[in-house]
């Protein structure tokens, strides 16, 4: 420990001394300075060139979260479908799934990102010749422009009602399950929960008089003004990351299902459970124990791989940190920030997945 500490101390002091000799600025004071550059895409946080570097980092972080969270959701869904598809008894479905997995796993991610970006940005028409599948929706190489509702107080109430509805649904499902365990009587808790989640916000919406003023995108000058746009950079990054990671998740899911003893399938059959119910109630809960640890790795991989966004122009955290490092010259502070953020994100995902793993572990005697 002492030796390691000594070596670490000399690395740090040597670096500090070299920076001093070169008279390179150091310290985190630069975060308060004006950024001076624009960011192409922001998530919830407005940004202009007059804002500080710290705000720029926050925007980058929000962008990274956006692509990581949506990417994880899409990749999990797609991966599970493909994994189960490969186990299907339908020869064509199984073979197609196998081809997908083999191709997507073996082509480097950066190549896939460039591929998707080229397809999206080169094959779509310019904004002046945009395709309009529905009135108010435009598809061009500037992105997918859709109308959004203009902000209204009713929407905040609806959000609150949605949260209450979700809490109510979870509570109701737990109560119904306990009641079933005690008395054996079943309630359609799925449908009732769904009614709660959708019903409460809908009721409020109608109560406010159904306010639906749309902000439609319109071609003005160079681009579409108004509405929201899904940029080609975000779409390409999402497509590339999800499709690549889904191939790995497919194999993990397949491994998990294959790890469950064949006897479990036969026991479920002998109980008269139909195939899909058997999957949901008997097989998948046991398969999850095998699936969750490698799945954690894949989620972490997807989050870290999102830093490749800098190659296709999506302004994520690494891209903005690179620009900042270059403009201020403070490479060490910039890298330290990137490392700290990714470490925090990765540790959080790990902690959550470990907690989930504990929850679904077999209690009592092993096996």
């Amino acid at each position: 420990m002492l030796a390691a500490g000594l070596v670490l101390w000399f690395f740090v002091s040597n670096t500090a001394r070299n920076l001093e000799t070169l008279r390179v600025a150091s310290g985190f004071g630069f975060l308060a300075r004006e950024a001076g550059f624009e960011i192409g895409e922001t998530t919830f946080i407005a940004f202009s060139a007059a804002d500080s570097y710290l705000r720029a980092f926050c925007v980058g972080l929000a962008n990274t979260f956006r692509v990581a969270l949506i990417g994880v959701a899409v990749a999990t869904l797609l991966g599970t479908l493909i994994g189960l598809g490969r186990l299907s008894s339908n020869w064509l479905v199984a073979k197609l799934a196998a081809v997908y997995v083999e191709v997507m796993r073996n082509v480097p991610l950066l190549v896939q990102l460039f591929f998707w970006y080229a397809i999206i940005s080169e094959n779509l028409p310019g904004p002046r010749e945009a395709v309009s599948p529905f009135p108010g929706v435009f598809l061009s190489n500037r992105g997918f422009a859709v109308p959004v509702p203009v902000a209204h107080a009713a929407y905040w109430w609806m959000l609150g009602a949605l949260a209450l509805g979700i809490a109510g649904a979870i509570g109701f499902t737990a109560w119904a399950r306990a009641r079933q365990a005690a008395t054996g009587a079943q309630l359609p808790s799925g449908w009732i929960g769904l009614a709660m989640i959708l019903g409460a916000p809908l009721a409020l919406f109608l109560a406010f008089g159904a306010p639906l003023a749309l902000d439609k995108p319109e071609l003005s000058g160079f681009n579409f003004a108004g509405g929201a746009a899904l940029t080609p950079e975000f779409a390409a990054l999402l497509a590339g990351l999800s499709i690549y990671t889904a191939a790995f998740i497919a194999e993990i899911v397949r491994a998990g299902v294959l790890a469950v003893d064949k006897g479990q399938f036969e026991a479920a059959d002998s109980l008269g459970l139909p195939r899909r119910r058997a999957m949901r109630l008997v097989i998948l809960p046991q398969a999850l124990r095998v699936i969750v640890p490698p799945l954690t790795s894949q989620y972490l991989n997807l989050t870290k791989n999102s830093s490749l966004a800098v190659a296709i122009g999506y302004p994520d955290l690494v891209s903005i940190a690179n620009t900042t490092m270059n403009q201020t010259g403070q490479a060490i502070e910039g890298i330290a920030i990137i490392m700290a953020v990714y470490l925090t994100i990765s540790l959080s995902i790990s902690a959550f997945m470990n907690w989930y793993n504990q929850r679904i572990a077999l209690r009592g005697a092993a096996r």
Partner: protein
Amino acid sequence: MRTIAGVAGAIALAFSAGAAQAQSTLDAVQKKGFVQCGVNTGLAGFSQPDSRGVWKGIDVDVCRAIAAAVFGDASKVRYTPLTAQQRFTALQSGEVDVLSRNTTWTVTRDTSLGLNFVGVNYYDGQGFMVPKKLNIKSAKQLNGATVCVQPGTTTELNLSDYFRANRMTFKPVVIEKLEEVLNAYFSGRCDVFTTDVSGLVSTRGSRAPNAADHVILPEVISKEPLGPAVRHGDDKWFDVVKWSLFAMLEAEEMGISSKNIEQQAASKDPAVQRFVGASGDIGKMLGLDNRWALNIVKQVGNYGESFEANLKPLGFDRGLNALWKDGGLMYAPPIR
């Protein structure tokens, strides 16, 4: 445990000893036997490998001049292609000895980045390039446009400043690699491409599918003096690089070129004699061979020859980069 502590102590001593005496880059380069030069990944006319992999360009010629001055052999250079984002870290960390990569001289780079700019080898400004079919005549009509730009450049900052000052907005598409940025612009992802006017002319001439379809707008929105840079705290190397550049300019001013250097070597003109090293010991003052300037002109040529060979074929004219005697800004201090 004691052996580990002993080893750690030895490593620590080695580090402190190494850090205490920062070796001059000139000594390191002379020991290595070549100059490690940081250049662009591929900008026609400035630093780009040709079809046989030989690096050509005016920034490359500055590197070769340094090698000719130090070693008497302009081929003793190794090139490191650097993107705009990598270039400063590469120089700061010692990965390259000199950065000759069409880099703008600004106060931030001169101070807080720890660099020293040796001079200017190309006076430039920032401009905009748009497709002709958009029918734009001036940069003031660009409100709301999508602009392709590379990150970590003065271009990015000047762009924001210009649009803010003129109360216009724009959407940036920020891509690191030059090839990818150009792909995005030529495929129509952005309406405008912005960089130094020299970069616009160069890429329009060399990369556009049809150069006539693109027009460079008349507004030049900034000053971009491009020049080589070295690290802080290294005066000897700073002088060598600076005077290598000035030697090329002074040679053109005195009329010495690679074509007549042989006759000039025997000249009776005292100024020429000092330049070629026949009299005085300027070479010794710089820590180089006395024939340093002679070697530069013989193997690389003077500034005018470098410009003619690299930039003229792409459609550049001397403009601001002519000698001060011809109405331009190129002025070298006297070699005496």
